[in-house]
């Protein structure tokens, strides 16, 4: 059965473009039409610029007809999480603080994607400033999970995951600070990659926690993930934490690496709080690898239980410092009734930030404040060293680590909104990867009885994306989870 254009993979669309079966304008029109048909229910987009997307598509078609095409992504629309700068377009971070902000320049990833002819298509909703696990913290309204509109799509890149699952873009970009790509990918049944810290430039990404933030792709397939990674990975002098390393052809590598691999199962990731349906789906995936000749080893990552605590100290400390720039002076929201400059700061920040952002700034301020910095912040950084060591120790013995991505499938909107700590614990399996700076990938590995997607997380060695993608690819070749689609038409829109 042939998929409609809006559900085809980047690889398929790319070959249809190159054989001239379709034009980029046709594809872009199909994506726009699909978005207009379903986004009133899904609410994945903060904004999109139809005329701009079509103009880019037309330029792509012209390049193709004069044999000047720029490669595999030329003419493919890609959605951007609304924290990644696209020059001349709004950039809101889903915050009233940046409601009217327009990007004065392109992020490095944007520039790279434009450079290979991809079409920048819309800005996708998120938890305000990427702080949250449900996309309920957006100042512009929550995004709904296309599989069940009453449930959350995960977060913080909920718009990026939901748009892809709903057919509103062939691929999207997100950012991941503690699981913000992998968890929504799991909850929406798509592939989400958080690359190694330093592989992708953060220049032009709105900073949340700079030592943890990393941009990555959402795609329908692992091959598409490799295609996107090929376009956006690489050293950038504009990001001082960007790493100089040789970038392989990730897509070509997929076919070369066949395993079998040694895979580690960390016992700490299969404890209390893990949904039985998720356990079963992950165990089935492990059995699959075993049947393919992979050696499965139980491993221990003994500092796992401290990861959430370490994360909420480090991430909030960095956020309180990064978000100090929003003072109502140079850009962003400015209070209309400030008496003096200090009053301007206090009022602009009070009016511009939402509750979760304020809560994290206050917590971050506390852990960095005089008298507490050593007890909290410095101690957390030391435990972070131990968490990273646990993984590096494990990698002496195994090629990758397998875990669930999220302890449960998508939860109901509102369920955890009143309890920040319960929300923070959603990220228990994804946070360690950010603290250790490793690559992590979530791929669909099943569905719950009620039809909600379940994600499998694969964690690789630093800069080991090629191997990680290959391990995921070998699973995907023999499973069809990722080819199912939600039935949005049959659902009534949620509030």
């Amino acid at each position, binding site marked *: 059965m042939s998929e409609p254009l809006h559900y085809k993979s980047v690889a398929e669309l790319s070959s249809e473009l190159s054989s001239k079966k379709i034009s980029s304008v046709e594809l872009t029109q199909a994506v726009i039409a699909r978005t207009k048909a379903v986004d009133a229910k899904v609410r994945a987009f903060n904004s999109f610029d139809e005329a701009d997307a079509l103009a880019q598509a037309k330029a792509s078609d012209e390049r193709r007809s004069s044999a000047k095409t720029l490669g595999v992504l030329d003419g493919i629309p890609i959605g951007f999480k609304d924290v990644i700068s696209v020059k001349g377009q709004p950039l809101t971070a889903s915050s009233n603080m940046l409601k*009217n902000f*327009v990007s*004065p*320049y392109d992020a490095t990833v944007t520039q790279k994607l434009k450079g290979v002819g991809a079409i920048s298509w819309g800005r996708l909703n998120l938890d305000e400033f990427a702080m949250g696990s449900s996309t309920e913290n957006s100042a512009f309204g929550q995004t709904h999970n296309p599989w069940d509109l009453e449930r959350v799509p995960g977060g913080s890149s909920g718009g990026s995951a939901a748009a892809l699952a709903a057919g509103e873009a062939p691929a999207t970009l997100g950012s991941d600070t503690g699981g913000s790509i992998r968890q929504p990918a799991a909850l929406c049944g798509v592939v989400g990659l958080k690359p190694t*810290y*330093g592989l992708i430039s953060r220049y032009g990404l709105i900073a949340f926690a700079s*030592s943890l933030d990393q941009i990555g792709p959402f795609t329908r397939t692992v091959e598409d993930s490799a295609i996107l990674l090929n376009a956006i990975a690489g050293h950038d*002098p504009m990001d*001082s*934490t*960007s*790493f100089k390393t040789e970038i392989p052809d990730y897509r070509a590598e997929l076919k070369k690496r066949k395993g079998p691999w040694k895979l580690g199962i960390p016992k700490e990731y299969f404890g209390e709080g893990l949904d039985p349906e998720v356990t079963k789906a992950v165990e089935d995936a492990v059995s699959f690898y075993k049947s393919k000749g992979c050696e499965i080893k139980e491993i221990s990552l003994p500092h796992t*239980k*401290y990861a*959430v*605590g*370490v994360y*909420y100290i480090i991430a909030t400390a960095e956020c309180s410092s990064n978000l100090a720039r929003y*003072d*109502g*002076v*140079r*850009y962003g*929201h*400015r209070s209309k009734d400030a008496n*003096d*400059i200090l009053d301007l700061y*206090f009022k602009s*920040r*009070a009016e511009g*930030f939402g*509750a979760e952002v*304020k*809560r994290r*700034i*206050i*917590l971050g*301020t*506390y852990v960095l*404040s005089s008298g*507490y910095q050593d*007890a*909290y912040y*410095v*101690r*957390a*950084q*030391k*435990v*972070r060293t*131990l968490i*990273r060591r646990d993984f590096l120790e494990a990698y002496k013995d195994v090629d990758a680590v397998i875990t669930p991505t999220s302890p449960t499938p998508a939860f109901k909107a509102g369920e955890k909104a009143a309890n*920040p*700590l319960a929300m*923070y614990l959603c990220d228990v399996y994804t946070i360690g990867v950010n*603290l*250790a*700076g*490793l690559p992590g990938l979530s791929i669909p590995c099943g569905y719950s009885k009620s039809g909600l997607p379940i994600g499998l997380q694969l964690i690789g060695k*630093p800069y080991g994306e090629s191997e990680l993608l290959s391990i995921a690819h070998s699973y995907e070749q023999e499973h069809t989870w990722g080819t199912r689609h939600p039935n949005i038409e049959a659902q009534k829109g949620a509030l």
Partner: protein
Amino acid sequence: MSADKIDINHLAKLARINLTEQEKERFAAQLGDVLNYIAELKEVDVTGIEPTAHASPVYNVWAEDIAKPGLSVTEALQNAPAQRDNMIVVPKVVE
């Protein structure tokens, strides 16, 4: 192990955010829960362990000190909430 007492007024002042009474009450309680949770870090033996600031094996990156084209004044000011004569306007800072 219980967490240290939170002085929410002091923190709001350090963070330069006006909080309503309701926010103060709610945040203090919620932050208390989070601090109780993270207090378990105190049980980890970190003797002789170096802190990790970030996980990239890159240190002391220097850029050449050469002039390069940047944003024009118009572009740099396009998001300013108030401007006059190519400058950002703020409330009076000095008397």
